[in-house]
């Protein structure tokens, strides 16, 4: 199958499905299933293509950049697409059961699918785009879809969270767009790989880089721009929270990497790189502490996202300005994939507990194992990956980051990594204790549809075993990575 068809499946299948789901509301669920199948198939084919053919470029409309828009698939893009396909597929299976319970009418439930599929479209487009203005459009599509999904819960708290999220997201997009304008004014192109050649230091580019980074940091909810995330992720329906935490926030981070390590790589000074790391460390600390004292399970998980996002940013100081940044690079991105799976599993299992015992106040979770052994197990297993216990994907990521930090003698990052793991352990254990406490009678609970428990479990198992595939992921990430293939491996 030619590249064109793969791209068509990845981008147009979810888009067409979304439009049809809007035109024929009743068909939404089946369209989503079809999309999941098509996209997964395409991702597999693309991965094969990239692994033996190297970076794949598709010139949309046949006009090469700068005139046209290029779609570029390197290892990183494929990894992100794969994660999106996995999470998207699982949510497609999970959502109907969950919505059937949390939303009153058929009509309300059907409204989940168009924005969900649009979200999927936006993610695929975002991961494949090599054009900074096109990236702006995907960002907007992503943001509006995410906001609509948050509002779907309909409760007042959810609506307020959605409103705040919308404001942050739109102003962030405008900051980014302003930066795009400056870049175009300076370099006369929007294509990332051309920018890598043309962009150089200068007032316009500095300011542009600052504006774009500012906007993207807000979208990636990096401390201190995280304030919008916990309410939004905690009040959305569980499957939506999962999507937001595992994929949407990663979109901003992804573009940030594309900019700093490709398009604007000339502008990334060591100081700037360290600054990103410092913010990341602050996020780890702040997020973990809030998670440690969160009153509700979903708030805890949301703050844990704030913390875990901090880890991703550690890869910037560890990978920047060195001949072998690849160790940290692959570490951070493997960590990202693991976090996506683990966090989705966590939100889904939290959703199950919410569904079963009606609330998610943590001190009411006593003896939840009596009611939902599987979901509690799922939570613990995904917790293992967040803490970074081997052989989870979280461990693989942290191991590589740790290796890079030691190799570069940046001991403060070593301390951050280990301290963060301990904090994560603390807030995960905090929940697990309630699961083991003995209670007189098991809590009154509604039965949870098996599909809801098993999908979550499958993901947590994936996250816990992801370490075993880390080498494969690293090989994939090598393709088109910003570092020449020298010094590969050697964590």
């Amino acid at each position: 199958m030619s590249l064109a068809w793969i791209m068509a499946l990845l981008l147009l299948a979810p888009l067409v499905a979304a439009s049809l789901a809007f035109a024929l509301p009743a068909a939404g669920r089946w369209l989503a299933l079809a999309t999941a199948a098509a996209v997964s198939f395409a991702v597999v084919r693309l991965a094969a293509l990239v692994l033996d053919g190297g970076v794949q470029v598709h010139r949309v409309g046949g006009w090469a950049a700068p005139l046209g828009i290029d779609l570029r698939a390197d290892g990183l893009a494929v990894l992100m697409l794969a994660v999106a396909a996995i999470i998207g597929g699982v949510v497609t299976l999970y959502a109907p059961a969950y919505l059937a319970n949390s939303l009153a009418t058929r009509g309300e439930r059907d409204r989940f699918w168009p924005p969900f599929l649009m979200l999927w479209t936006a993610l695929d487009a975002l991961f494949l785009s090599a054009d900074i203005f096109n990236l702006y459009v995907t960002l907007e599509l992503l943001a509006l879809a995410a906001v609509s999904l948050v509002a779907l819960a309909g409760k007042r708290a959810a609506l307020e969270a959605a409103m705040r999220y919308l404001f942050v997201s739109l102003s962030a997009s405008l900051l980014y767009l302003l930066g795009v304008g400056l870049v175009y004014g300076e370099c006369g192109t929007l294509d990332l790989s051309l920018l890598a050649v043309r962009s150089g230091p200068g007032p316009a580019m500095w300011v542009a880089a600052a504006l774009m980074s500012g906007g993207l940091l807000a979208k990636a909810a990096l401390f201190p721009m995280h304030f919008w995330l916990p309410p939004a992720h905690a009040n959305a329906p569980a499957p939506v929270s999962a999507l937001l935490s595992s994929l949407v926030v990663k979109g901003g981070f992804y573009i940030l990497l594309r900019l700093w390590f490709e398009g604007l790589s000339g502008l990334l000074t060591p100081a700037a790189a360290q600054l990103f790391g410092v913010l990341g460390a602050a996020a780890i600390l702040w997020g973990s502490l809030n998670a440690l004292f969160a009153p509700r399970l979903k708030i805890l998980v949301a703050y844990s996202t704030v913390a875990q996002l901090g880890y991703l940013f550690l890869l910037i100081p560890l990978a920047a300005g060195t001949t072998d940044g690849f160790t940290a690079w692959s570490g951070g991105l493997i960590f990202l994939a693991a976090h996506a799976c683990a966090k989705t599993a966590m939100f889904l299992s939290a959703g199950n507990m919410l569904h079963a015992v009606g609330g998610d106040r943590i001190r009411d979770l006593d003896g939840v194992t009596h009611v939902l052994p599987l979901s509690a197990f799922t939570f613990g297993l995904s917790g293992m990956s967040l803490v970074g216990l081997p052989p989870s994907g979280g461990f693989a990521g942290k191991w590589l980051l740790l290796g890079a930090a030691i190799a570069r003698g940046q001991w403060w990052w070593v301390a951050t990594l280990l301290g963060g793991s301990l904090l994560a352990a603390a807030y995960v254990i905090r929940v697990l204790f309630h699961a083991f406490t003995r209670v007189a009678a098991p809590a009154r609970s509604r039965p949870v549809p098996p599909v809801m428990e098993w999908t979550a479990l499958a993901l947590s198992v994936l996250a816990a075993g992801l370490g075993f595939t880390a080498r494969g992921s690293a090989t994939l990430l090598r393709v088109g990575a910003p570092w020449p293939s020298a010094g590969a491996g050697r964590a």
Partner: protein
Amino acid sequence: MSARTKAGRVAIGALSLGLLGTLVWAVLALPRGPSELAGRAIRRLPESGVTNPVTAVLLNYRAYDTLLELAVLLLAVAGVWALRRGDWPPGDLRGRPLVLSLLRFVLPVLMLTAGYLLWIGAFAPGGAFQGGAMLGGAAVLVLLAGMAGGARRHTGVLRAGLALGVLVFAGAAVAAAALTGEILRFPTGDAGLWILGIEAAALVSIGLTLGALYLGGRPGAEDDAGG
């Protein structure tokens, strides 16, 4: 920083001024000449199938952007409809024959103008969005006049019309891929026709979208008890 307190406002003001200063510093440093890309866009205009360079960019060079843009439009409607039921203006024109006859005259003109803008877009400023704006205006008039009751009954048609633009555009993208091997690469020679077809569909959807956004919610007669 809380904007309630005076100190807060001052801080924010200072922040904004700082932002302004930086931006000015940056924009004044921009090169003043035309970008090399502009020349390229003009030079290859003949291949694009249209003579209006903006349309060429919108629907050929960077047609992919526009496809996603239509997706944003559709998504906005989907989001709005999920949020609430539209509030219909209490339009009743019986006994207001003047307005009624005015509308009878204005609406066709608007339609016509929209069509014209669509067509002229190929050579001069204009195109689906301008035309769509016209249709949107027409839709608003119809709503205000309380003449859109039909939409209540035929939501299915309405939904189809709203999705039409994206579907046709995506269809064109796939068809082009089948014919030329690249997404949205229109066969040389007929590019103009392809663009016109896509724009026609887009025109309808854009017009309906603007009307729907004005209505600000679901038409309502739908099956949802919860709605």
